[in-house]
């Protein structure tokens, strides 16, 4: 696959898949042989069809009657792993940095590729450090609760903030971040 041209089918990078799968295993959403198989299937150097990601999302959805708190926790866990056991610590030093990082070219845009109408965008619309307020406009195909968890986990990970919350009342694609 060329880095210059977008693939015709949407794909997600193995590092993102591996983080998601490992979070599922850490939270015991999958266990035993299914967990081993899930992790074994993922090569962090490869790109995977977006459908594979959606399969895991669907599996999570089917496993719980009340899945929203689980999805939120999954997103937080993914970013905790990324920061403490992945490259995160070298890339960001303050919680607020994560918002710029994730909406920049090395954030979500670097781990999902494909037709624009499918992969969407993830943009920082507002950022006010003094007020501890930011707004992100997301049209990615990822589950919005997991995405909220990713933002909470990523902003909290460096440990310099006391309060972090992300809401999207009324507009699922408008993620309002409050951080102090």
């Amino acid at each position, binding site marked *: 696959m060329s880095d210059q041209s977008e693939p015709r089918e949407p794909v997600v990078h193995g590092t993102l898949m591996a983080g998601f799968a490992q979070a599922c295993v850490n939270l015991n959403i999958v266990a035993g042989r299914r967990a081993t198989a899930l992790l074994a299937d993922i090569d962090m150097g490869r790109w995977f069809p977006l459908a594979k990601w959606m399969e895991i999302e669907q599996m999570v959805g089917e496993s719980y009657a009340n899945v929203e708190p689980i999805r939120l926790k999954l997103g937080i866990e993914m970013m905790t792993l990324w920061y403490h056991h992945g490259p995160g610590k070298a890339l960001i030093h303050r919680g607020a940095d994560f918002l710029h990082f994730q909406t920049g070219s090395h954030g979500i845009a670097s781990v999902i590729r494909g037709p624009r109408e499918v992969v969407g965008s993830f943009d920082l619309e507002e950022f006010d450090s003094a007020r501890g307020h930011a707004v992100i406009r997301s049209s990615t195909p990822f589950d919005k609760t997991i995405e909220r968890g990713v933002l909470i986990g990523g902003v909290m990970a460096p440990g310099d903030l*006391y309060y972090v919350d992300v809401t999207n009342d009324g507009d699922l694609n408008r993620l309002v971040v409050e951080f102090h």
Partner: protein
Amino acid sequence: MTLDEILQGRDPDRLSELSREDLHRLFWMYKGLVKRVERDTAYWQATNDNLRTAYERLDEQERELARAYQTIRQDLEIAQQVQHALLPKDHPEMLARFEFSVYHKQMTEVGGDYYDFYRLRDGSHAIGVFDISGHGVSAALIMAYLKAQLVQTMEQVSRPRDIVEYLNNATVGFLREVRRYATVNFVAFGERTFRYVCGGGYGVLVRGGEVHTFNKGDPFIGLRRRAYSEYELPFETGDVLALYTDGMVEAQDSAGADYSTRRLHELVRANAELPANQILQRCLDDYGQFRRVDADDITLIVLRRRAA
């Protein structure tokens, strides 16, 4: 006094000493903790709900398993009745000529040991003892198949060697396909002798205090197309013949020793003057004391020619 110092102490009254900046920090720390607790509580509640649902599913699956097990048990009981019906029951013609006693025990509800009594086309009586490889339902199905094939074979030929060869040729293709085979011990009785074909089966004749062991070197049924050998031995009034499968002689005691053909043959020899049913009972008593646990289906037939 800083916020951290006050929080490490035990005097809440000192909060009044905090700066405005520290009070802000305290405010957001508190709100942050509350938010985390909210998220964690929701997470654990969802996990707990999921656990309850999982237990409910487990209960339901357990009930389904119990129902399935019950169905299988009922099917096996019926299969056991069918298999028993396939074994010989009344043998007035045989009883008129021979005094005999049979012990037949399957490891499970159904099994792979099969014996039968036959009247051949030339009018002579015969006994067949077969041990089908494997256990349980699959072996029982092969047993029913062999019985059906034998019935057809008997209509074609009557010499033991011809019967076994015909049976082997008719069944080898199917048995190889299903990866099964069977030992065979087929004995046809004449006026003062018997002729036998033995492929992996077991037989012993006690005559005049001497033990004559069957030559069992011919191939099993279902392995390949081969010619079989037929042997003839005298069998007169008072002589005792025992036919059996390997279940008894290969059973082990607690030290791992086999019961052995030698032990069984010696027991038959030592009790050869007793009625057939008592010889068989002596064998079973001795075996029962010896073996730790049954490891295979068991068939033992003890036979003595009656006085003319």
